[in-house]
C-alpha cells in the first residue's frame, strides 16, 4: 500500500527512511495492509458521508454567500507513544500556567515589564490589550485561560515545537470527538490491536472547568448557571458550539437571548428572565458588549462588561487574552516561563525574528524566499507568505508591506513540517500535519489526550487550516509504553 511512498527530507510520523513503519505504527500498518483497495475506497467514502449526514460542517463565506462544507477526514491517525505524550502534556501545562500568570500580571502590576523582560510598548500598543476595559479587574480563580488550543508542529528532527497559542476562542474540539466517533464506526478493525487513551470523561472535565469559575456575587446556595454564547448558526464554528453546549448540558445562547439589568445578566426563557452566572463565550472581545467595545456589534450584549467588572458574571475565556497570543508576544513566551515559573521551556518555540530590529529586517528582506512571513494580528493562514513556495511578485508585495509596517510582521525560518501518510482519492501520499492540543484550566489544569491533528491535504501545501483545504485526523495516545498489544 505504501510501496511508492517517499518520506523525502521530512520527518515522517509513520514511516522510517527505509520504507518500514516506525515501531509504534507497526500494528496499524499490518492491519491496514489487510484491507483491499475496494474496502479502503468504500470506507473512505462512508467516513466522508458520515460527516455530511450528521451536518458536522463549517461555513465558508465568499462573494456568493455561505456554503456548508465538511472538513475532509483522513483515516491514517497520528499515533503518539505514551512517554512522548507525557512530555507534551507537561510542556502544555507549563506554558498555560506561565501565560495565565502573564495575563494576570499585565492587567495588574506589570511586574514583567518592570523587570525589563517585555518592552512596555509591545503591550501598550497591542490592539488586543484592553487595559481600559478590564485593567485591575479580579476574576474567579485568577484564571484568564479556561480553554487554550496550542498548535504544535514537529521539525525535521521530529522535535515538537509550539507554533501558535490560541487563548481566545480556539475551535475544533468537537472534531476531536467526531473524528474518533467516525473512526470507530468505519474502521473498527483498527482498534483491535491498540490500547488508546479514551476521550470519554473529557467533556465532563471541560464542564467542571466551566462551572468552577463562579463569580463572587453568585448565589452560594445554588449551582451556578452556565451558558455557551454563540454568534449564531451562520458562524463558521457553529457546529463546535452546538456540540460543546449539548455535551456539557448547558444552554446555547445568542446575544439576543441575554439582557443585562442592574449589572446582572439574565437569559430570556419561556418563564421569564433567568440569572446567568458563567458565560463561555465564542464571540470575540470586540463584539461582546457594544457599550464597551465596538458600538456596531449586534452579536453582543449591552452592559455585559459592567456585570463582569461588578463580579456578577464570569466570562470565559477572559476578556483581553488577545494580547498574550499574538505572534509578536509569542516570541516572549519562553521568557515568561523563565520569569514566572523559574523553569526552562519544555516544548520550545519556533525561532522568530522581529522586523522592528533593523538588523533582522535587513536579513529578512534579503532572505525572504527562505522564510515564512506572518502578520502578527492575523490568523487562519491569512496574510502570510511562505517564501520557498511564493512567486517573486508575492515576495515583492510582502517586502513592500514589511517596509511600510515592520512592527506588523514577524519572520520564521521555513520549518520542514513533519508529514504523515494521507489516503485520498485512492492512494497514500505524504502530507504536512500539525497538532492542536487543548488545555483546560479550572481548579486544576488538564490536557485533553491527543487533540486535533490537522493535515494539509493539498500535496506540498503547508497550510492546514480548514478554511483553506485542510483536513482532520484522529490522534491516538497509546496507553501502553509505545507498544500495541493483542
Amino acid at each position: 500500500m505504501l510501496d511508492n511512498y517517499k518520506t523525502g527530507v521530512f520527518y515522517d510520523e509513520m514511516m522510517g527512511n527505509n520504507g518500514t513503519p516506525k515501531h509504534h505504527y507497526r500494528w496499524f500498518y499490518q492491519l491496514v495492509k489487510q484491507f483491499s483497495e475496494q474496502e479502503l475506497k468504500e470506507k473512505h467514502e462512508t467516513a466522508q458521508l458520515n460527516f455530511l449526514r450528521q451536518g458536522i460542517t463549517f461555513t465558508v463565506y465568499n462573494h456568493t454567500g455561505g456554503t456548508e462544507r465538511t472538513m475532509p477526514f483522513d483515516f491514517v491517525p497520528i499515533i503518539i507513544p505514551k512517554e512522548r505524550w507525557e512530555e507534551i502534556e507537561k510542556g502544555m501545562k507549563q506554558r498555560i500556567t506561565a501565560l495565565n500568570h502573564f495575563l494576570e500580571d499585565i492587567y495588574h502590576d506589570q511586574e514583567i515589564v518592570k523587570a525589563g523582560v517585555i518592552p512596555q510598548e509591545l503591550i501598550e500598543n497591542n490592539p488586543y490589550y484592553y487595559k481600559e476595559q478590564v485593567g485591575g479587574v479580579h476574576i474567579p480563580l485568577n484564571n484568564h485561560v479556561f480553554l487554550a488550543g496550542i498548535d504544535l508542529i514537529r521539525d525535521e528532527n521530529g522535535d515538537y515545537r509550539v507554533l501558535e497559542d490560541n487563548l481566545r476562542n480556539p475551535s475544533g474540539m468537537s472534531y476531536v470527538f467526531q473524528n474518533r466517533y467516525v473512526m470507530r464506526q468505519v474502521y473498527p478493525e483498527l482498534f483491535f490491536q491498540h490500547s488508546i487513551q479514551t476521550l470519554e470523561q473529557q467533556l465532563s472535565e471541560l464542564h467542571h472547568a466551566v462551572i468552577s469559575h463562579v463569580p463572587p456575587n453568585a448565589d452560594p446556595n445554588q449551582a451556578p448557571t452556565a451558558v455557551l454564547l454563540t454568534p449564531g448558526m451562520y458562524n463558521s464554528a457553529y457546529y463546535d458550539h452546538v456540540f460543546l453546549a449539548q455535551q456539557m448540558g448547558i444552554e446555547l445562547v445568542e446575544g439576543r437571548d441575554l439582557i443585562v439589568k442592574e449589572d446582572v445578566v439574565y437569559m430570556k426563557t419561556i418563564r421569564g428572565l433567568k440569572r446567568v452566572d458563567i458565560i463561555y463565550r465564542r464571540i470575540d472581545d470586540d463584539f461582546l458588549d457594544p457599550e464597551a467595545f465596538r458600538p456596531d456589534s449586534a452579536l453582543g450584549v449591552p452592559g455585559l462588561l459592567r456585570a463582569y467588572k461588578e463580579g456578577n458574571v464570569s466570562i470565559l475565556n477572559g476578556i483581553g487574552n488577545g494580547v498574550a497570543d499574538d505572534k509578536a508576544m509569542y516570541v516572549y513566551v519562553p521568557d515568561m516561563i523563565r520569569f514566572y515559573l523559574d523553569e526552562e521551556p519544555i516544548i520550545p518555540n519556533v525561532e522568530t525574528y522581529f522586523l522592528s530590529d533593523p538588523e533582522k529586517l535587513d536579513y529578512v528582506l534579503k532572505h525572504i524566499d527562505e522564510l515564512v512571513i506572518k502578520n502578527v494580528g492575523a490568523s487562519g493562514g491569512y496574510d502570510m507568505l511562505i517564501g520557498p513556495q511564493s512567486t517573486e511578485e508575492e515576495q515583492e508585495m510582502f517586502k513592500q508591506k514589511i517596509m511600510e509596517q515592520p512592527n506588523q510582521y514577524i519572520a520564521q525560518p521555513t520549518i520542514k513540517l513533519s508529514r504523515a501518510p494521507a489516503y485520498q482519492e485512492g492512494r497514500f501520499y505524504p502530507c504536512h500535519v500539525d497538532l492542536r492540543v487543548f488545555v483546560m484550566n479550572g481548579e486544576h489544569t488538564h490536557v485533553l489526550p491527543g487533540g486535533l491533528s490537522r493535515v494539509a491535504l493539498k500535496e506540498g501545501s503547508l497550510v492546514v487550516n480548514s478554511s483553506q483545504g485542510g483536513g482532520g485526523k484522529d490522534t491516538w495516545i497509546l496507553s501502553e509504553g509505545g507498544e500495541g498489544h493483542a
Partner: protein
Amino acid sequence: MLSRVADSLYWMSRNIERAENNARVLSVQLIHMLEASDQQVLDRDWEEVLEICASTVDYHNQYDRLDTNTIIQYLTMSPMNVNSLMNGMTYARENAKATRDMLPDELWEVLNEFHLDQKEWMEQLSTTPQTQQYLKKVITTSMTAQGVIESSMSRGIPYTFIKVGKWLERAEKTARVLNVICEKNRKEAVHGTNNYYYWLTALQFLNGYDSYIKEHPPTMESKHVLSFLIKEGSFPRSIRYCMDHVLEAVQHLEQGKISHYSEDLFTMLEKVQEEISDTSIADMDMEQLMKFLDHFQDRCMTVSRMFSETYYLVEPVSVN
C-alpha cells in the same frame, strides 16, 4: 428553556406539518386532475388547491394564468412562495439547526438528509411520477421526523412546544380544506350535483378516508364527513382532536396550574373547545358552516398569538 429556542421548535414543527399536509393535497390533486372533465373544472380545482396550500391572490400576483406545471412548480420548489414545500422544509431545517442541542440527533439527520437531496430533486422534477415521488419523500420525511420525536424525546418542555406547533397547524389546515370544499358545495348546491366526489376529496386531502369509511361504510353524507373532520374526538386530524391536545399540552406545561400570565390563554382555549362542542354540524347549512370555519381560523390565529405572548416567543413591540 430559552424563548428563542421554544419559538424555533414551535416553527420547526409547524413547517414540517405544513409541508406534509400540502404535499398530500398536491399528491391527491395530481391524481384527480386526470379525471377532470374540462378545463373549467381543472382550473377551479387548481384554484382550490392553491387556496389550501398557499394563497391564490399571491399566485395571481405573479402569474397571469393557471397552468398546471407552473402551479406544481410554485407549490413544490418555488422560492417565491413562502409556503412551497422546499421553503417549508428549509425553514424547518434552519429551525432545527438553531435548536440542535435540544433535539435528538436522528431528527436533525432526517431533516438534513432531505436538505442534502434537495438539489438533486430540483433538477429532476419534470414529470408527474417524479413529482409524486418527491411528494412522497416530503411525507415520509415528516412521518419519520414524528417517529423520532415520539420514540426518543422526553415528554418535557421542548417536546410540548413541538406538539403544540403541530396540532395548531393541523387544526388550521383542516379548517382551511373544509372551508374551500364548503364554498364549492354552496356554489353548486343550485345545480344539484352529486357531492360524493367533493367530500371524498376532503377526506383524502386530510388523510381521513380510511378511518372515515370504517365508521360510515360506504356512504358519503356531507354531514357525516363534516362531523367526522370537525368533531370526531378519536381522529387525529379533526379540529376537536387537535384543539383538545393543544389545551392538554398547555396544561402539561403549566403542571395543571393557571397563573396570571397563562390565564388568557387557558380562557381562550376553553372557549374554543366549547365553541366546537356546542356546534351542531347537522343543523347548519353551508353558509353557516363556512362562517363557523372562518371564525375558527381566526381563533387559531388568536391562540397562536396568545401562546407566543405567554411564553415570550415574540418580542413585545416597543411603544416608542
